[in-house]
């Protein structure tokens, strides 16, 4: 597919102009520093701006309040969105739950939930992983027992990203433990205000702000109408949803934005007598990662628009995409030099004045934090297993 038609060029320009005009500078600044802990108020403020433009749920059809864009427009939008340093979409609600609900939800569920997601009335988070169910997701144990018109949920979920800013959580729970472990899993929508839901932060080693949580369920009563799909058949939804996630997690757009920031930093940073970007060894490393990222980008386009629909092949995008992203962040960490050692919070503390250039402040935390991307959404080892089995036809 050709993205360079006059129509699409005009669309790209429209998107670019909109972001340049409407994205608040204070929010843009935080994103451009790779901060991990954007406040909920900033998220809401930005979401409201997008809602007014009808761009808050770019992957949705017109029917549910989306712009109804084709793949090319969605692709361009996502690219420009990232390059503008706009904050990540509240993706759990919009891309994962939203699209799963359109496929598996009842009309009542769609009517009730989708508009609220679009308008930013409900923020969602995801309750999949458990302490003993990480890569091996299907071995999950969080339990739901049917009692009349309710499920009663007991157990806990790990790695609830953005759980502390979410209003609802969609969960996988075990409703039958007798058969194959993929069977007996049910997909529930749970109001975070329900009695018995508790959330504790999981502090991460990178020293950034609160980002993930552990969620505990104690006799939480969930109305049966908040079940997505059939009882015990939740795994089908998971497979659909992981397919969505696998494409999103290539992170090409975000990596392009990070690479641009790396280059700006290297062009501005003092390096002995000159500029860092003029150091042949360092600029060579930038060139190498730029080429690698380009290879992932072109492959993503080929798999997305190449005719034959990509299935498990998309695993390679997640795998290489996160590896390349990790490399960009490592180069930024290198580039920042001794400033990278300083813990961010302390530079803003009363007694101190920022010691390093502004862009440098989050390089350490971002580098450490993003190691998660090689692990989450199916670790890169799991992605290799998927390709070995589903693409290459190899068996253990």
């Amino acid at each position: 597919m050709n993205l360079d038609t006059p129509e699409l060029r005009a669309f790209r320009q429209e998107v670019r102009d909109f972001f340049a005009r409407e994205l608040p500078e204070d929010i843009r600044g935080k994103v451009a520093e790779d901060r991990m802990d954007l406040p909920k108020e900033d998220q809401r403020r930005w979401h409201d701006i997008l809602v007014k433009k009808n761009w808050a749920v770019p992957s949705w059809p017109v029917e549910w309040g989306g712009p109804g864009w084709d793949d090319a427009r969605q692709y361009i939008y996502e690219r420009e969105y990232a390059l503008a340093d706009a904050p990540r979409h509240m993706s759990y609600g919009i891309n994962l739950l939203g699209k799963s609900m359109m496929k598996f939800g009842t009309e009542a569920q769609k009517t009730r939930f989708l508009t609220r997601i679009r308008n930013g009335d409900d923020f969602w988070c995801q309750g999949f992983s458990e302490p003993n169910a990480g890569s091996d997701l299907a071995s999950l144990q969080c339990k739901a027992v049917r009692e009349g018109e309710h499920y009663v949920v007991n157990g806990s979920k790990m790695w609830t990203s953005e759980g502390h800013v979410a209003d609802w959580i969609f969960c996988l729970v075990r409703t039958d433990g007798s058969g194959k472990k993929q069977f007996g899993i049910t997909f529930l929508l749970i109001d975070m205000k329900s009695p018995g839901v508790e959330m504790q932060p999981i502090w991460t080693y990178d020293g950034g702000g609160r980002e993930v949580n552990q969620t505990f369920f104690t006799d939480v009563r969930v109305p049966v109408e908040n079940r997505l799909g059939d009882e015990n058949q939740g795994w089908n939804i998971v497979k659909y949803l992981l397919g969505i996630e696998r494409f999103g997690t290539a992170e090409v757009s975000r990596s392009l934005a990070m690479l641009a920031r790396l280059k700006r930093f290297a062009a501005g940073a003092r390096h002995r007598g000159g500029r860092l970007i003029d150091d042949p060894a360092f600029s060579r490393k930038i060139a190498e990662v730029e080429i690698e990222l380009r290879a992932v980008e072109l492959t993503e386009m080929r798999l997305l628009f190449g005719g034959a629909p990509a299935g498990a092949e998309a695993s390679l995008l997640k795998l290489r995409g996160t590896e390349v992203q990790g490399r960009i962040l490592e180069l930024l960490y290198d580039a920042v030099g001794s400033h990278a050692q300083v813990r961010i919070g302390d530079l803003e503390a009363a007694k101190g004045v920022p010691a390093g250039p502004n862009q440098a402040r989050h390089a350490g935390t971002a580098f450490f934090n993003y190691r998660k991307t090689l692990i989450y959404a199916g670790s890169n080892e799991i992605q290799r297993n998927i390709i070995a089995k589903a693409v290459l036809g190899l068996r253990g």
Partner: protein
Amino acid sequence: MQLSDEQNLLRDSIARFVDDEYEFSRRQKIVAVEPGFSRAHWRRMAELGWLGATLPESHGGLGGGAAEMAIVMEQFGRRLVTSPYLVSVVMSGTALAEAGDEAQKSRWLPAIAEGRIVAFAEGEAPARHDPAFVETAARRDGAGYVLDGAKHLVPFASEAEAFLVSARTGGAQAQSAGISLFLVPAKSPGVSLKPYRTHDGARAADLVLAGVRLGGDTRVGVEGEAFGAIELALDHAAAAMCVEASGAMWAVHDQTLAYMKLRSQFGQTLGSFQALQHRIVDVYIKCQLAQSMAWDAVAALDSADPTDRARRVSAAKAHLAGAAMAVGKEGIQLHGGIAMTDDLAIGHYFKRLAAIAHTYGDGEYHMERFRRLSGLGGNTG
């Protein structure tokens, strides 16, 4: 790059042809004897219009573009086809169409389409991939020139009717200005060859020019300003080698995967060992990414902006150079000892991939060119 229906048909025909004629043991018989490629196949390719596919309709060609060239090269790569296609059609054809005058084009482009060979001869040994480093000298001599110098590793030189030779008519040793291009008939007095086989099964030669007298009409383009056309031809060659490498890498992948499913050790197939599974998955990923980059280099040949073209071609060639070496080595390693035998195809794919990685700019050269053209550290290289 999306192929048209006609282009898909062309690809299918070539794929069928190479599958029929270049099964590995037949390919080995072809390269075992002089001239290192099949003259019969070469004639057939001319008759089928494949050689002229990319050449201008005004001069005996079919007016196709970079995609047609890539379709040919990818299939050649898949089956290790040796032929003067790259050096005559892709390189000399491109340079002549770009810089030749009407008389030169009328005489030589149809000849190339018919299968007569004009070998592009620009490389010199100490240049180490830099086409601006030209020591071969062309001295004015009345209306004509006298050429002295040597060119290294000219593919299928022994079969060439003429050479397109870069020579310095002015400027300093490594300057792009002052380089001219000459059509040198192979039979000219003072032209001699030192031929040899190359590791990949092909043939090449050193071309020695000792006081070669040429008429003024042999100069292609403006005196001292041929560098643009040379870079264009070299970018075409680099992109062509990228798709050839992509085809060969997929062949390595397919053969290795098939062997892993077949061969047993310790009571199970190689393909059932998880550590080896992850390794072949990395090969698969490298093939996918390399294919994307190779076809982007092909698309870049049509770019109106020479800097954009050069930058994308160099990105692809630098990427492919690394990937081709890595995939070749891994193909050997995953096969194990049997890969060392001359009878198995895999080692020959590796040798061709290594040659591609080191010809018309190695990874180092193209990485540095990409870096420079990307505004990274402009003060070196």
